[in-house]
């Protein structure tokens, strides 16, 4: 069954990969193409971590600057172009999150707590990530999802899940080890 390009963002992979290669040659139109294809979802990814739209746009801005400057370091043979792109925007969002926490530690006292199941339920049934995460014990699974999707630190996970820090660290490591085995 062919998915609609708009409903299956992973179908954008070849276009994004080619555009990053063109960015490496200094072609500004290629960066604009990546922006048109991916910026809205990049803001969406950053909002889940930062929970503020202005900061999420800041992270997206920084990510595009980084893509422009380091497109040459993108190696198409090594991995997915979109994974590379989203790793950059997550990275920027996490850096901004850490800085914000430093200046405003109360920021996290927020009633609208992210639900780990929400992102999990949105993964396609056929997704290996979903199938492998579902095999994990719930605590380990929730800790990993909250860390990746919402940028939770070990300390925040301990608070949110009501467990000692040492337990959280061990849950994460054991959960990741099982995930590694399952995903190969």
């Amino acid at each position, binding site marked *: 069954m062919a998915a609609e390009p708009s409903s299956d*963002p992973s179908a954008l992979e*070849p276009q994004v990969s*080619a*555009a990053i290669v*063109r*960015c*490496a*040659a*200094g*072609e*500004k139109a290629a*960066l604009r193409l990546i*922006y048109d294809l991916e*910026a*809205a*979802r990049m*803001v*969406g*990814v950053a*909002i*889940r971590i930062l929970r503020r*739209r202005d900061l999420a*746009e800041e992270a*997206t*801005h920084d990510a*595009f*600057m980084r893509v*422009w400057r380091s*497109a*040459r370091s993108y190696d198409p043979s*090594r*991995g*997915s172009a*979109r*994974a590379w792109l*989203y790793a950059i925007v*997550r*990275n920027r969002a996490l850096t901004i999150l850490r800085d914000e926490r430093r200046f405003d530690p109360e920021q996290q006292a927020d009633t609208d707590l992210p639900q780990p199941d929400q*992102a999990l339920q*949105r*993964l*396609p049934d056929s*997704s*290996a*990530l*979903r199938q492998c995460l579902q095999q994990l014990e719930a605590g380990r699974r929730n800790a*990993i999802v909250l*860390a*990746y*999707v919402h*940028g939770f*630190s*070990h300390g925040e996970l301990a608070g949110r899940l009501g467990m000692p820090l040492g337990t959280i660290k061990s849950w*994460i*490591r054991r959960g*990741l*080890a099982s*995930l*590694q085995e399952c*995903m190969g």
Partner: protein
Amino acid sequence: MTPDRDDRLLAAEFVLGLLDAETRAAAERRLASDAAFARDVAAWQKHFAAFDDTADAVVPADDLWRRIEAGMAAAAPAALVTPPGLLRRLWNSLGALRIAALSGTAAAVAFALVAVVSLRHADEVAARKPVYVAILVDDATRQAGAIVNAFADGRVEMIPLVDMTVPAGRTLQVWTLWNREVGPRSVGLLDRARATPLDLQRLPTTAADQLFEITLEPAGGSPTGRPTGPILYKGTTARTL
């Protein structure tokens, strides 16, 4: 736990963003020097990337692109503009290889290309090499007639390897086909065989398995906008290593 396994978990925690500042900085430095670790990180990024596609699309404010564009102008350009055709210059300077190619087959040309690339400073060539190469072959004789090089910046060039005979009142026309529904598009007209840039600016970026062919057409080019004359040489693009 084995060191390999420890490293994979470290890579995973790095991707999740769970490392403390010092360990994170060490992992970032390691990415540049340790290929196995960089592979582990890329593998985890790919595993978790499925989550990124579950985020809602949030259309950014109008000024976001303007700010990015302004930043781009201020930032150093991503790369200096690629100097034209290093490979072509190498090609011309290596007469022996050229003769081999002139009398040879597609395989000989492919071999010669590999030889040229491996002969020279690998890094310098890597920065300027074509992303895709097509070797255009005569279907009947299997003789290679031309090479098409497509570069990362969108430039595409054709380099003939044989002196194609063009009768009076006729012209060589170069076509490319990337989508059967769209059909072949003309990308160049030549009165004789010579190295020439091809005009693909308004076409989608050249990709793997894209067909290039040279046909013999009436002077001024095919009257129908489609190839009408005999196909002299054709070949499809392959990604360079």
